[in-house]
Protein backbone atom coordinates (compact mmCIF):
# COMPACT_ATOMS: atom_id res chain seq x y z
CA UNK A 1 0.00 0.00 0.00
CA UNK A 2 2.91 2.32 0.81
CA UNK A 3 4.35 1.74 -2.65
CA UNK A 4 1.03 2.58 -4.29
CA UNK A 5 0.64 5.78 -2.27
CA UNK A 6 4.23 6.83 -3.00
CA UNK A 7 3.64 6.34 -6.72
CA UNK A 8 0.33 8.20 -6.54
CA UNK A 9 1.93 11.14 -4.73
CA UNK A 10 4.70 11.22 -7.34
CA UNK A 11 2.09 11.35 -10.12
CA UNK A 12 0.39 14.31 -8.46
CA UNK A 13 3.71 16.14 -7.98
CA UNK A 14 4.79 15.46 -11.56
CA UNK A 15 1.47 16.69 -12.94
CA UNK A 16 1.61 19.98 -11.06
CA UNK A 17 5.22 20.58 -12.11
CA UNK A 18 4.40 20.26 -15.81
CA UNK A 19 3.88 23.71 -17.35
CA UNK A 20 1.87 22.41 -20.32
CA UNK A 21 -0.45 20.51 -18.01
CA UNK A 22 -0.83 23.59 -15.83
CA UNK A 23 -1.81 25.61 -18.92
CA UNK A 24 -4.47 23.09 -19.93
CA UNK A 25 -5.94 22.81 -16.42
CA UNK A 26 -5.81 26.61 -16.11
CA UNK A 27 -7.78 26.79 -19.33
CA UNK A 28 -10.25 24.20 -18.07
CA UNK A 29 -10.86 25.97 -14.75
CA UNK A 30 -11.02 29.40 -16.40
CA UNK A 31 -13.52 28.21 -19.00
CA UNK A 32 -15.79 26.59 -16.47
CA UNK A 33 -15.75 29.78 -14.39
CA UNK A 34 -16.38 31.97 -17.46
CA UNK A 35 -19.17 29.66 -18.56
CA UNK A 36 -21.04 30.22 -15.28
CA UNK A 37 -20.63 33.96 -15.64
CA UNK A 38 -21.71 33.96 -19.28
CA UNK A 39 -24.53 31.52 -18.53
CA UNK A 40 -25.87 33.78 -15.77
CA UNK A 41 -25.45 36.93 -17.89
CA UNK A 42 -27.24 35.28 -20.82
CA UNK A 43 -30.12 34.22 -18.59
CA UNK A 44 -30.32 37.77 -17.20
CA UNK A 45 -30.24 39.11 -20.78
CA UNK A 46 -33.03 36.68 -21.66
CA UNK A 47 -35.17 37.98 -18.80
CA UNK A 48 -34.44 41.55 -19.93
CA UNK A 49 -35.30 40.56 -23.51
CA UNK A 50 -38.57 39.08 -22.22
CA UNK A 51 -39.47 42.43 -20.64
CA UNK A 52 -38.60 44.18 -23.93
CA UNK A 53 -40.76 41.68 -25.83
CA UNK A 54 -43.73 42.36 -23.51
CA UNK A 55 -43.24 46.11 -23.95
CA UNK A 56 -43.03 45.74 -27.76
CA UNK A 57 -46.08 43.47 -28.02
CA UNK A 58 -48.15 45.74 -25.72
CA UNK A 59 -47.18 48.79 -27.81
CA UNK A 60 -48.38 46.88 -30.90
CA UNK A 61 -51.70 46.22 -29.17
CA UNK A 62 -51.23 42.49 -28.69
CA UNK A 63 -53.63 40.88 -26.23
CA UNK A 64 -52.07 37.42 -26.11
CA UNK A 65 -48.74 37.73 -24.31
CA UNK A 66 -46.12 34.97 -23.95
CA UNK A 67 -45.47 33.51 -20.50
CA UNK A 68 -42.03 34.20 -18.98
CA UNK A 69 -39.23 31.75 -19.94
CA UNK A 70 -38.84 28.92 -17.43
CA UNK A 71 -35.38 29.22 -15.87
CA UNK A 72 -34.22 26.29 -13.77
CA UNK A 73 -31.36 27.16 -11.36
CA UNK A 74 -28.86 24.52 -12.54
CA UNK A 75 -29.41 25.30 -16.21
CA UNK A 76 -27.22 28.38 -15.59
CA UNK A 77 -24.33 25.92 -15.14
CA UNK A 78 -25.31 23.85 -18.18
CA UNK A 79 -22.32 24.89 -20.31
CA UNK A 80 -20.05 22.95 -17.98
CA UNK A 81 -21.41 19.77 -19.62
CA UNK A 82 -19.79 20.70 -22.95
CA UNK A 83 -16.55 21.81 -21.29
CA UNK A 84 -16.12 18.59 -19.27
CA UNK A 85 -17.08 16.49 -22.28
CA UNK A 86 -14.54 18.24 -24.54
CA UNK A 87 -11.77 19.89 -22.52
CA UNK A 88 -12.12 17.60 -19.47
CA UNK A 89 -11.39 14.56 -21.64
CA UNK A 90 -8.36 16.33 -23.14
CA UNK A 91 -7.11 17.17 -19.62
CA UNK A 92 -7.25 13.44 -18.79
CA UNK A 93 -5.31 12.64 -21.99
CA UNK A 94 -2.66 15.28 -21.17
CA UNK A 95 -2.37 13.80 -17.68
CA UNK A 96 -1.93 10.20 -18.77
CA UNK A 97 -0.09 10.17 -22.08
CA UNK A 98 3.39 10.04 -20.53
CA UNK A 99 2.44 7.99 -17.47
CA UNK A 100 4.37 4.95 -18.70
CA UNK A 101 6.11 5.97 -21.92
CA UNK A 102 7.60 9.02 -20.19
CA UNK A 103 9.00 6.88 -17.36
CA UNK A 104 10.25 4.38 -19.92
CA UNK A 105 12.04 7.02 -21.98
CA UNK A 106 13.62 8.57 -18.89
CA UNK A 107 14.75 5.14 -17.68
CA UNK A 108 12.87 5.51 -14.39
CA UNK A 109 10.39 2.71 -15.13
CA UNK A 110 13.12 0.06 -14.82
CA UNK A 111 14.23 1.73 -11.62
CA UNK A 112 10.71 1.57 -10.16
CA UNK A 113 10.29 -2.07 -11.30
CA UNK A 114 13.57 -2.97 -9.62
CA UNK A 115 12.16 -1.86 -6.25
CA UNK A 116 9.81 -4.11 -4.23
CA UNK A 117 6.73 -2.93 -6.12
CA UNK A 118 4.52 -5.29 -8.11
CA UNK A 119 3.61 -4.29 -11.62
CA UNK A 120 -0.09 -4.13 -10.80
CA UNK A 121 0.80 -1.75 -7.97
CA UNK A 122 2.50 0.54 -10.48
CA UNK A 123 -0.70 0.66 -12.53
CA UNK A 124 -2.81 1.18 -9.38
CA UNK A 125 -0.47 3.91 -8.13
CA UNK A 126 -0.62 5.75 -11.45
CA UNK A 127 -4.40 5.37 -11.54
CA UNK A 128 -4.75 6.64 -7.98
CA UNK A 129 -2.46 9.60 -8.70
CA UNK A 130 -4.39 10.49 -11.83
CA UNK A 131 -7.65 10.14 -9.90
CA UNK A 132 -6.37 12.49 -7.19
CA UNK A 133 -5.44 15.15 -9.75
CA UNK A 134 -8.77 14.86 -11.59
CA UNK A 135 -10.65 14.83 -8.27
CA UNK A 136 -8.88 17.97 -7.01
CA UNK A 137 -9.50 19.69 -10.33
CA UNK A 138 -13.21 18.89 -10.38
CA UNK A 139 -13.46 19.86 -6.70
CA UNK A 140 -11.99 23.30 -7.47
CA UNK A 141 -14.38 23.74 -10.39
CA UNK A 142 -17.35 22.68 -8.25
CA UNK A 143 -16.49 25.23 -5.55
CA UNK A 144 -15.94 28.03 -8.11
CA UNK A 145 -19.16 27.13 -9.90
CA UNK A 146 -21.24 27.11 -6.76
CA UNK A 147 -19.75 30.38 -5.46
CA UNK A 148 -20.18 32.18 -8.81
CA UNK A 149 -23.62 30.72 -9.29
CA UNK A 150 -24.82 32.29 -6.03
CA UNK A 151 -22.95 35.57 -6.60
CA UNK A 152 -23.82 36.24 -10.25
CA UNK A 153 -27.27 34.72 -10.69
CA UNK A 154 -28.48 35.72 -7.22
CA UNK A 155 -30.17 32.33 -6.90
CA UNK A 156 -29.60 29.91 -4.02
CA UNK A 157 -29.51 26.23 -4.94
CA UNK A 158 -31.75 23.98 -2.84
CA UNK A 159 -30.72 20.59 -1.46
CA UNK A 160 -32.15 18.85 -4.54
CA UNK A 161 -30.04 21.05 -6.85
CA UNK A 162 -26.89 20.49 -4.77
CA UNK A 163 -27.38 16.71 -4.89
CA UNK A 164 -27.92 16.86 -8.65
CA UNK A 165 -24.76 18.96 -9.04
CA UNK A 166 -22.68 16.58 -6.89
CA UNK A 167 -23.99 13.62 -8.90
CA UNK A 168 -23.02 15.37 -12.12
CA UNK A 169 -19.47 15.95 -10.86
CA UNK A 170 -19.22 12.31 -9.76
CA UNK A 171 -20.20 11.17 -13.26
CA UNK A 172 -17.79 13.72 -14.75
CA UNK A 173 -15.05 12.14 -12.60
CA UNK A 174 -15.90 8.65 -13.92
CA UNK A 175 -15.97 9.98 -17.49
CA UNK A 176 -12.58 11.67 -17.20
CA UNK A 177 -11.08 8.63 -15.46
CA UNK A 178 -12.20 6.51 -18.42
CA UNK A 179 -10.11 8.70 -20.70
CA UNK A 180 -7.21 8.64 -18.25
CA UNK A 181 -7.29 4.80 -18.08
CA UNK A 182 -7.43 4.54 -21.88
CA UNK A 183 -4.49 6.93 -22.23
CA UNK A 184 -2.53 4.98 -19.62
CA UNK A 185 -3.13 1.77 -21.60
CA UNK A 186 -1.88 3.42 -24.81
CA UNK A 187 1.12 4.72 -22.87
CA UNK A 188 1.99 1.19 -21.71
CA UNK A 189 1.72 -0.18 -25.24
CA UNK A 190 3.71 2.50 -27.07
CA UNK A 191 7.22 3.86 -26.69
CA UNK A 192 6.55 7.07 -28.59
CA UNK A 193 4.62 9.35 -26.25
CA UNK A 194 3.80 11.86 -29.04
CA UNK A 195 2.32 9.04 -31.13
CA UNK A 196 0.30 7.81 -28.13
CA UNK A 197 -0.94 11.32 -27.46
CA UNK A 198 -2.07 11.88 -31.04
CA UNK A 199 -3.68 8.43 -31.14
CA UNK A 200 -5.73 9.35 -28.07
CA UNK A 201 -6.61 12.70 -29.64
CA UNK A 202 -7.98 10.83 -32.68
CA UNK A 203 -10.01 8.55 -30.39
CA UNK A 204 -11.25 11.60 -28.46
CA UNK A 205 -12.19 13.35 -31.69
CA UNK A 206 -14.09 10.29 -32.88
CA UNK A 207 -15.93 9.80 -29.57
CA UNK A 208 -16.61 13.46 -28.79
CA UNK A 209 -17.19 14.88 -32.21
CA UNK A 210 -17.45 12.54 -35.19
CA UNK A 211 -19.96 10.06 -33.72
CA UNK A 212 -22.27 12.72 -32.20
CA UNK A 213 -22.11 14.57 -35.53
CA UNK A 214 -23.06 11.40 -37.40
CA UNK A 215 -25.90 10.82 -34.93
CA UNK A 216 -27.07 14.40 -35.45
CA UNK A 217 -27.17 13.89 -39.21
CA UNK A 218 -29.46 10.88 -38.65
CA UNK A 219 -32.09 12.82 -36.68
CA UNK A 220 -35.35 13.73 -38.35
CA UNK A 221 -36.70 17.27 -38.36
CA UNK A 222 -40.33 18.22 -38.00
CA UNK A 223 -41.75 21.70 -38.58
CA UNK A 224 -43.50 23.17 -35.52
CA UNK A 225 -45.90 26.06 -36.04
CA UNK A 226 -45.96 28.78 -33.36
CA UNK A 227 -49.57 29.87 -32.93
CA UNK A 228 -48.75 33.39 -31.67
CA UNK A 229 -46.16 34.41 -34.23
CA UNK A 230 -47.17 32.12 -37.10
CA UNK A 231 -43.51 31.17 -37.37
CA UNK A 232 -42.21 27.73 -38.27
CA UNK A 233 -39.40 26.16 -36.26
CA UNK A 234 -37.46 23.00 -37.05
CA UNK A 235 -37.64 20.52 -34.16
CA UNK A 236 -35.28 17.55 -34.23
CA UNK A 237 -36.16 14.12 -32.92
CA UNK A 238 -34.15 10.94 -32.45
CA UNK A 239 -34.31 8.04 -34.87
CA UNK A 240 -33.19 4.44 -34.38
CA UNK A 241 -30.09 5.20 -36.48
CA UNK A 242 -29.16 8.30 -34.43
CA UNK A 243 -29.68 6.41 -31.14
CA UNK A 244 -27.58 3.49 -32.38
CA UNK A 245 -24.76 5.81 -33.46
CA UNK A 246 -24.81 7.59 -30.10
CA UNK A 247 -24.40 4.25 -28.33
CA UNK A 248 -20.80 4.16 -29.56
CA UNK A 249 -20.02 7.55 -28.04
CA UNK A 250 -19.50 7.80 -24.26
CA UNK A 251 -19.25 11.58 -24.79
CA UNK A 252 -22.81 11.70 -26.17
CA UNK A 253 -24.00 9.55 -23.26
CA UNK A 254 -22.24 11.84 -20.77
CA UNK A 255 -23.90 14.88 -22.36
CA UNK A 256 -27.31 13.20 -22.13
CA UNK A 257 -26.82 12.50 -18.42
CA UNK A 258 -25.47 16.02 -17.85
CA UNK A 259 -28.45 17.64 -19.59
CA UNK A 260 -30.86 15.75 -17.33
CA UNK A 261 -28.92 16.39 -14.13
CA UNK A 262 -28.34 20.09 -14.79
CA UNK A 263 -31.98 20.78 -15.61
CA UNK A 264 -31.48 21.50 -19.29
CA UNK A 265 -34.45 19.30 -20.22
CA UNK A 266 -37.70 20.76 -18.81
CA UNK A 267 -39.36 17.31 -18.59
CA UNK A 268 -36.71 15.95 -16.20
CA UNK A 269 -35.95 19.18 -14.32
CA UNK A 270 -38.28 18.58 -11.41
CA UNK A 271 -38.12 14.81 -10.99
CA UNK A 272 -36.06 13.16 -8.23
CA UNK A 273 -32.41 12.20 -8.61
CA UNK A 274 -33.26 8.49 -8.41
CA UNK A 275 -35.60 8.77 -11.36
CA UNK A 276 -33.01 10.67 -13.41
CA UNK A 277 -30.32 8.09 -12.68
CA UNK A 278 -32.72 5.25 -13.44
CA UNK A 279 -33.62 6.87 -16.76
CA UNK A 280 -29.94 7.22 -17.62
CA UNK A 281 -28.75 3.90 -16.19
CA UNK A 282 -27.80 2.60 -19.65
CA UNK A 283 -25.75 5.72 -20.35
CA UNK A 284 -24.00 5.45 -16.95
CA UNK A 285 -23.09 1.81 -17.62
CA UNK A 286 -21.80 2.81 -21.03
CA UNK A 287 -19.47 5.36 -19.49
CA UNK A 288 -18.26 2.88 -16.86
CA UNK A 289 -17.64 -0.20 -19.02
CA UNK A 290 -15.05 1.16 -21.51
CA UNK A 291 -13.06 2.66 -18.61
CA UNK A 292 -13.07 -0.62 -16.69
CA UNK A 293 -12.20 -2.59 -19.83
CA UNK A 294 -9.13 -0.49 -20.64
CA UNK A 295 -8.10 -0.58 -16.98
CA UNK A 296 -8.13 -4.38 -17.02
CA UNK A 297 -6.20 -4.33 -20.29
CA UNK A 298 -3.66 -1.98 -18.66
CA UNK A 299 -3.12 -4.44 -15.79
CA UNK A 300 -2.74 -7.30 -18.26
CA UNK A 301 -0.37 -5.33 -20.51
CA UNK A 302 1.78 -4.26 -17.54
CA UNK A 303 1.97 -7.84 -16.22
CA UNK A 304 2.87 -9.40 -19.55
CA UNK A 305 5.42 -6.90 -20.82
CA UNK A 306 8.90 -8.37 -20.85
CA UNK A 307 10.48 -5.00 -20.32
CA UNK A 308 8.17 -2.29 -19.09
Amino acid at each position, binding site marked *: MNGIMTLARKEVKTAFRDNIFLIIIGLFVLLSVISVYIGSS*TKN*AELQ*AYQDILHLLKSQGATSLPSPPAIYPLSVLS*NIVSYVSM*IGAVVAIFLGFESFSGERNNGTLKLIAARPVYRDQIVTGKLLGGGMVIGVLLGIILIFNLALFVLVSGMTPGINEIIRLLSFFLIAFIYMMGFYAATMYVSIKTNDSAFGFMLMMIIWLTISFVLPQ*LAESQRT*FAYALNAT*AQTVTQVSSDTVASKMTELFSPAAQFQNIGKDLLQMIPETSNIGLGEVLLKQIGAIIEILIPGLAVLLLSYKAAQKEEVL
Partner: protein
Amino acid sequence: MIIEIGKKEIRDAFRNKLFLSILAMLLVLTVVSIILGSYQVKIAMDNYNSSISFLQSLGKAELPPMPNLNPISASKGFVNYIGMVGALMAIVLGNTAISKEHKNGTLRLILSRGVFRDTFLNGKLLGNLAILAGITALTGIITFVSLIAIGGVALTTSDIVRLLLFFGMTFLYMTFFTVLSMGIATVSTKGSRALLITVIVWLVLSFVFPQIGDTMDMDNQIPGGFFSSMGMSRDQEHQVLQQFKFYETLRDGVEEMSPTKHYERISYALLNVKPGFEANTPWEVVGLKWINLIGLLAPSAAIWLLTYIAFLRRENIYQSN
Protein backbone atom coordinates in the same frame (compact mmCIF):
# COMPACT_ATOMS: atom_id res chain seq x y z
CA MET B 1 16.52 22.85 -54.07
CA ILE B 2 13.13 24.00 -52.82
CA ILE B 3 11.50 21.43 -55.09
CA GLU B 4 13.80 18.69 -53.77
CA ILE B 5 12.89 19.48 -50.15
CA GLY B 6 9.22 19.65 -51.14
CA LYS B 7 9.40 16.22 -52.82
CA LYS B 8 11.04 14.74 -49.74
CA GLU B 9 8.23 16.14 -47.60
CA ILE B 10 5.64 14.38 -49.74
CA ARG B 11 7.52 11.06 -49.59
CA ASP B 12 7.95 11.35 -45.81
CA ALA B 13 4.29 12.19 -45.22
CA PHE B 14 3.14 9.02 -46.93
CA ARG B 15 5.41 7.00 -44.63
CA ASN B 16 3.91 8.62 -41.51
CA LYS B 17 1.42 6.15 -40.00
CA LEU B 18 -0.32 8.78 -37.90
CA PHE B 19 -0.86 11.07 -40.89
CA LEU B 20 -2.08 8.15 -43.01
CA SER B 21 -4.53 7.07 -40.25
CA ILE B 22 -6.03 10.56 -39.99
CA LEU B 23 -6.12 10.89 -43.78
CA ALA B 24 -7.98 7.56 -44.09
CA MET B 25 -10.41 8.70 -41.39
CA LEU B 26 -11.00 11.99 -43.21
CA LEU B 27 -11.63 10.27 -46.54
CA VAL B 28 -14.07 7.80 -44.99
CA LEU B 29 -15.89 10.67 -43.26
CA THR B 30 -16.01 12.60 -46.54
CA VAL B 31 -17.74 9.71 -48.29
CA VAL B 32 -20.08 9.07 -45.33
CA SER B 33 -21.01 12.74 -44.95
CA ILE B 34 -21.76 13.13 -48.67
CA ILE B 35 -23.93 9.99 -48.74
CA LEU B 36 -25.77 11.04 -45.57
CA GLY B 37 -26.05 14.61 -46.88
CA SER B 38 -27.69 13.44 -50.11
CA TYR B 39 -30.04 11.27 -48.08
CA GLN B 40 -30.88 14.18 -45.73
CA VAL B 41 -31.85 16.34 -48.72
CA LYS B 42 -34.34 13.67 -49.74
CA ILE B 43 -35.76 13.35 -46.18
CA ALA B 44 -36.06 17.14 -45.82
CA MET B 45 -37.99 17.32 -49.08
CA ASP B 46 -40.42 14.59 -47.91
CA ASN B 47 -40.88 16.28 -44.49
CA TYR B 48 -41.51 19.66 -46.07
CA ASN B 49 -44.14 18.24 -48.41
CA SER B 50 -45.99 16.52 -45.56
CA SER B 51 -45.82 19.71 -43.42
CA ILE B 52 -47.27 21.76 -46.26
CA SER B 53 -50.09 19.25 -46.73
CA PHE B 54 -50.84 19.39 -42.99
CA LEU B 55 -50.86 23.22 -42.87
CA GLN B 56 -53.08 23.35 -45.94
CA SER B 57 -55.49 20.90 -44.32
CA LEU B 58 -55.69 23.35 -41.36
CA GLY B 59 -56.58 26.10 -43.80
CA LYS B 60 -53.39 28.14 -43.21
CA ALA B 61 -52.75 30.67 -45.94
CA GLU B 62 -49.21 31.64 -44.86
CA LEU B 63 -47.05 28.64 -45.66
CA PRO B 64 -43.37 28.25 -44.77
CA PRO B 65 -40.98 28.76 -47.67
CA MET B 66 -39.34 25.70 -49.13
CA PRO B 67 -36.21 24.83 -47.12
CA ASN B 68 -32.86 25.08 -48.83
CA LEU B 69 -32.61 21.77 -50.68
CA ASN B 70 -29.81 22.63 -53.05
CA PRO B 71 -27.58 19.59 -53.70
CA ILE B 72 -24.31 21.28 -52.72
CA SER B 73 -25.59 21.61 -49.13
CA ALA B 74 -24.88 17.87 -48.92
CA SER B 75 -21.31 18.97 -48.10
CA LYS B 76 -22.46 20.57 -44.83
CA GLY B 77 -21.25 17.62 -42.76
CA PHE B 78 -17.90 17.79 -44.53
CA VAL B 79 -17.39 21.36 -43.22
CA ASN B 80 -17.62 20.08 -39.66
CA TYR B 81 -15.29 17.14 -40.28
CA ILE B 82 -12.66 19.31 -41.95
CA GLY B 83 -13.02 21.78 -39.08
CA MET B 84 -11.85 19.10 -36.65
CA VAL B 85 -10.24 16.12 -38.39
CA GLY B 86 -8.73 18.18 -41.23
CA ALA B 87 -7.22 20.61 -38.72
CA LEU B 88 -5.72 17.77 -36.66
CA MET B 89 -4.25 16.22 -39.80
CA ALA B 90 -2.74 19.57 -40.81
CA ILE B 91 -1.23 19.91 -37.32
CA VAL B 92 0.40 16.47 -37.51
CA LEU B 93 1.75 17.30 -40.95
CA GLY B 94 3.22 20.66 -39.90
CA ASN B 95 4.71 19.43 -36.65
CA THR B 96 6.32 16.33 -38.19
CA ALA B 97 7.84 18.41 -41.00
CA ILE B 98 10.05 20.31 -38.54
CA SER B 99 10.37 18.04 -35.50
CA LYS B 100 11.53 14.97 -37.49
CA GLU B 101 14.58 16.90 -38.73
CA HIS B 102 15.47 17.88 -35.16
CA LYS B 103 14.81 14.39 -33.83
CA ASN B 104 16.79 12.56 -36.52
CA GLY B 105 19.63 15.07 -36.51
CA THR B 106 19.11 15.73 -40.22
CA LEU B 107 18.59 19.48 -39.82
CA ARG B 108 22.31 19.91 -39.23
CA LEU B 109 23.01 17.76 -42.29
CA ILE B 110 20.64 19.66 -44.58
CA LEU B 111 21.84 23.10 -43.50
CA SER B 112 25.50 22.07 -43.88
CA ARG B 113 24.76 21.64 -47.61
CA GLY B 114 24.15 24.62 -49.88
CA VAL B 115 20.69 25.21 -48.44
CA PHE B 116 19.77 28.56 -46.95
CA ARG B 117 17.44 28.63 -43.99
CA ASP B 118 14.71 30.38 -45.96
CA THR B 119 15.06 27.78 -48.75
CA PHE B 120 14.65 25.06 -46.15
CA LEU B 121 11.44 26.60 -44.79
CA ASN B 122 10.06 27.34 -48.27
CA GLY B 123 10.69 23.76 -49.38
CA LYS B 124 8.96 22.42 -46.29
CA LEU B 125 5.96 24.71 -46.82
CA LEU B 126 5.76 23.91 -50.52
CA GLY B 127 5.80 20.15 -49.91
CA ASN B 128 3.12 20.34 -47.24
CA LEU B 129 0.92 22.68 -49.26
CA ALA B 130 1.18 20.25 -52.19
CA ILE B 131 -0.01 17.43 -49.89
CA LEU B 132 -2.92 19.56 -48.62
CA ALA B 133 -3.81 20.56 -52.19
CA GLY B 134 -3.77 16.89 -53.23
CA ILE B 135 -6.05 15.92 -50.32
CA THR B 136 -8.40 18.81 -51.07
CA ALA B 137 -8.55 17.81 -54.75
CA LEU B 138 -9.21 14.18 -53.82
CA THR B 139 -12.06 15.06 -51.43
CA GLY B 140 -13.40 17.42 -54.10
CA ILE B 141 -13.45 14.65 -56.70
CA ILE B 142 -15.15 12.28 -54.22
CA THR B 143 -17.80 14.96 -53.58
CA PHE B 144 -18.47 15.67 -57.26
CA VAL B 145 -18.65 11.97 -58.17
CA SER B 146 -20.87 11.12 -55.15
CA LEU B 147 -23.27 13.98 -55.83
CA ILE B 148 -23.72 12.90 -59.43
CA ALA B 149 -23.63 9.10 -58.89
CA ILE B 150 -25.46 8.78 -55.54
CA GLY B 151 -27.49 11.96 -55.35
CA GLY B 152 -28.40 11.71 -59.02
CA VAL B 153 -28.33 15.48 -59.40
CA ALA B 154 -27.17 17.68 -62.25
CA LEU B 155 -24.95 20.48 -60.96
CA THR B 156 -25.28 23.93 -62.52
CA THR B 157 -22.22 26.01 -63.42
CA SER B 158 -22.91 28.17 -60.34
CA ASP B 159 -23.02 25.07 -58.12
CA ILE B 160 -19.70 23.86 -59.54
CA VAL B 161 -18.02 27.24 -58.99
CA ARG B 162 -19.44 27.44 -55.45
CA LEU B 163 -18.11 23.95 -54.68
CA LEU B 164 -14.69 24.80 -56.14
CA LEU B 165 -14.51 27.97 -54.06
CA PHE B 166 -15.58 26.00 -51.00
CA PHE B 167 -12.74 23.52 -51.54
CA GLY B 168 -10.41 26.50 -51.95
CA MET B 169 -11.49 27.71 -48.50
CA THR B 170 -10.94 24.20 -47.14
CA PHE B 171 -7.37 24.32 -48.43
CA LEU B 172 -6.79 27.74 -46.82
CA TYR B 173 -8.20 26.50 -43.52
CA MET B 174 -5.94 23.46 -43.37
CA THR B 175 -3.00 25.63 -44.50
CA PHE B 176 -3.51 27.82 -41.42
CA PHE B 177 -3.07 24.88 -39.05
CA THR B 178 -0.06 23.50 -40.95
CA VAL B 179 1.62 26.91 -40.84
CA LEU B 180 0.75 27.32 -37.15
CA SER B 181 2.12 23.88 -36.34
CA MET B 182 5.32 24.47 -38.35
CA GLY B 183 5.74 27.86 -36.68
CA ILE B 184 5.44 26.52 -33.15
CA ALA B 185 7.70 23.54 -33.95
CA THR B 186 10.31 25.95 -35.39
CA VAL B 187 10.28 28.20 -32.35
CA SER B 188 10.16 25.38 -29.80
CA THR B 189 13.24 23.39 -28.89
CA LYS B 190 11.24 20.21 -28.24
CA GLY B 191 9.07 18.69 -30.97
CA SER B 192 6.72 16.83 -28.61
CA ARG B 193 6.17 19.98 -26.53
CA ALA B 194 5.47 21.95 -29.70
CA LEU B 195 2.81 19.40 -30.63
CA LEU B 196 1.12 19.76 -27.25
CA ILE B 197 1.17 23.57 -27.46
CA THR B 198 -0.27 23.47 -30.99
CA VAL B 199 -3.04 21.15 -29.83
CA ILE B 200 -3.88 23.57 -27.00
CA VAL B 201 -4.00 26.50 -29.46
CA TRP B 202 -6.20 24.41 -31.76
CA LEU B 203 -8.54 23.59 -28.88
CA VAL B 204 -8.85 27.26 -27.97
CA LEU B 205 -9.43 28.39 -31.57
CA SER B 206 -11.67 25.58 -32.73
CA PHE B 207 -13.61 24.61 -29.60
CA VAL B 208 -13.34 27.23 -26.90
CA PHE B 209 -14.06 30.45 -28.84
CA PRO B 210 -16.99 28.99 -30.82
CA GLN B 211 -18.33 27.44 -27.60
CA ILE B 212 -18.17 30.79 -25.78
CA GLY B 213 -19.96 32.35 -28.75
CA ASP B 214 -22.67 29.69 -28.54
CA THR B 215 -23.01 30.24 -24.79
CA MET B 216 -23.50 33.96 -25.35
CA ASP B 217 -26.14 33.37 -28.02
CA MET B 218 -29.45 34.18 -26.35
CA ASP B 219 -31.43 32.38 -29.03
CA ASN B 220 -29.38 29.24 -28.46
CA GLN B 221 -30.31 28.71 -24.81
CA ILE B 222 -33.71 27.08 -25.30
CA PRO B 223 -34.33 24.12 -27.65
CA GLY B 224 -36.10 25.47 -30.73
CA GLY B 225 -34.83 29.01 -30.04
CA PHE B 226 -35.58 31.60 -27.36
CA PHE B 227 -37.23 34.12 -29.67
CA SER B 228 -39.33 31.45 -31.34
CA SER B 229 -40.52 30.21 -27.94
CA MET B 230 -41.55 33.80 -27.18
CA GLY B 231 -43.53 33.82 -30.43
CA MET B 232 -41.38 36.54 -32.00
CA SER B 233 -41.20 37.10 -35.74
CA ARG B 234 -37.82 37.83 -37.41
CA ASP B 235 -38.50 41.58 -37.47
CA GLN B 236 -39.47 41.66 -33.82
CA GLU B 237 -36.38 39.59 -32.97
CA HIS B 238 -34.17 42.16 -34.74
CA GLN B 239 -35.87 45.01 -32.85
CA VAL B 240 -35.20 43.33 -29.50
CA LEU B 241 -31.60 42.49 -30.43
CA GLN B 242 -31.01 46.21 -31.14
CA GLN B 243 -31.21 46.69 -27.34
CA PHE B 244 -28.33 44.22 -26.93
CA LYS B 245 -26.01 45.58 -29.61
CA PHE B 246 -22.91 45.64 -27.39
CA TYR B 247 -23.59 42.11 -26.15
CA GLU B 248 -24.03 40.81 -29.70
CA THR B 249 -20.89 42.67 -30.91
CA LEU B 250 -18.90 41.09 -28.07
CA ARG B 251 -20.22 37.63 -28.97
CA ASP B 252 -19.39 38.18 -32.61
CA GLY B 253 -15.91 39.43 -31.66
CA VAL B 254 -15.17 36.24 -29.71
CA GLU B 255 -16.27 34.13 -32.67
CA GLU B 256 -14.23 36.24 -35.11
CA MET B 257 -11.06 35.15 -33.29
CA SER B 258 -11.63 31.59 -34.47
CA PRO B 259 -10.45 30.57 -37.97
CA THR B 260 -12.82 27.61 -37.65
CA LYS B 261 -15.73 30.03 -37.37
CA HIS B 262 -14.46 32.01 -40.40
CA TYR B 263 -14.20 28.79 -42.39
CA GLU B 264 -17.68 27.71 -41.28
CA ARG B 265 -19.26 31.08 -42.11
CA ILE B 266 -17.82 31.44 -45.61
CA SER B 267 -18.42 27.74 -46.38
CA TYR B 268 -22.04 27.83 -45.24
CA ALA B 269 -22.62 30.92 -47.37
CA LEU B 270 -21.00 29.29 -50.42
CA LEU B 271 -22.90 26.03 -49.95
CA ASN B 272 -26.18 27.90 -49.40
CA VAL B 273 -26.52 26.24 -45.99
CA LYS B 274 -26.99 29.70 -44.50
CA PRO B 275 -30.01 31.39 -46.09
CA GLY B 276 -29.66 34.73 -47.83
CA PHE B 277 -26.98 34.00 -50.43
CA GLU B 278 -29.03 32.01 -52.94
CA ALA B 279 -29.50 34.95 -55.31
CA ASN B 280 -25.82 35.92 -55.31
CA THR B 281 -23.21 34.68 -57.76
CA PRO B 282 -20.37 32.63 -56.20
CA TRP B 283 -17.92 35.53 -56.48
CA GLU B 284 -20.43 37.92 -54.93
CA VAL B 285 -20.66 35.56 -51.94
CA VAL B 286 -16.86 35.71 -51.57
CA GLY B 287 -17.09 39.52 -51.79
CA LEU B 288 -19.79 39.65 -49.14
CA LYS B 289 -17.81 37.32 -46.90
CA TRP B 290 -14.44 39.00 -47.49
CA ILE B 291 -13.85 39.39 -43.76
CA ASN B 292 -13.96 35.60 -43.35
CA LEU B 293 -11.55 35.17 -46.25
CA ILE B 294 -9.18 37.64 -44.59
CA GLY B 295 -9.72 35.75 -41.32
CA LEU B 296 -8.37 32.63 -43.01
CA LEU B 297 -5.54 34.25 -44.97
CA ALA B 298 -4.11 36.93 -42.67
CA PRO B 299 -3.25 34.74 -39.64
CA SER B 300 -1.42 32.24 -41.88
CA ALA B 301 0.61 35.03 -43.51
CA ALA B 302 1.43 36.64 -40.15
CA ILE B 303 2.47 33.36 -38.53
CA TRP B 304 4.61 32.41 -41.53
CA LEU B 305 6.36 35.77 -41.40
CA LEU B 306 7.07 35.34 -37.68
CA THR B 307 8.34 31.81 -38.34
CA TYR B 308 10.79 33.18 -40.92
CA ILE B 309 12.06 35.81 -38.52
CA ALA B 310 12.40 33.31 -35.67
CA PHE B 311 14.14 30.66 -37.77
CA LEU B 312 16.51 33.03 -39.56
CA ARG B 313 17.62 34.69 -36.34
CA ARG B 314 17.77 31.64 -34.13
CA GLU B 315 21.18 30.91 -32.59
CA ASN B 316 20.54 27.49 -31.02
CA ILE B 317 19.17 26.00 -34.22
CA TYR B 318 20.84 22.63 -33.71
CA GLN B 319 19.59 22.17 -30.19
CA SER B 320 18.50 18.57 -29.93
CA ASN B 321 15.01 17.39 -29.04
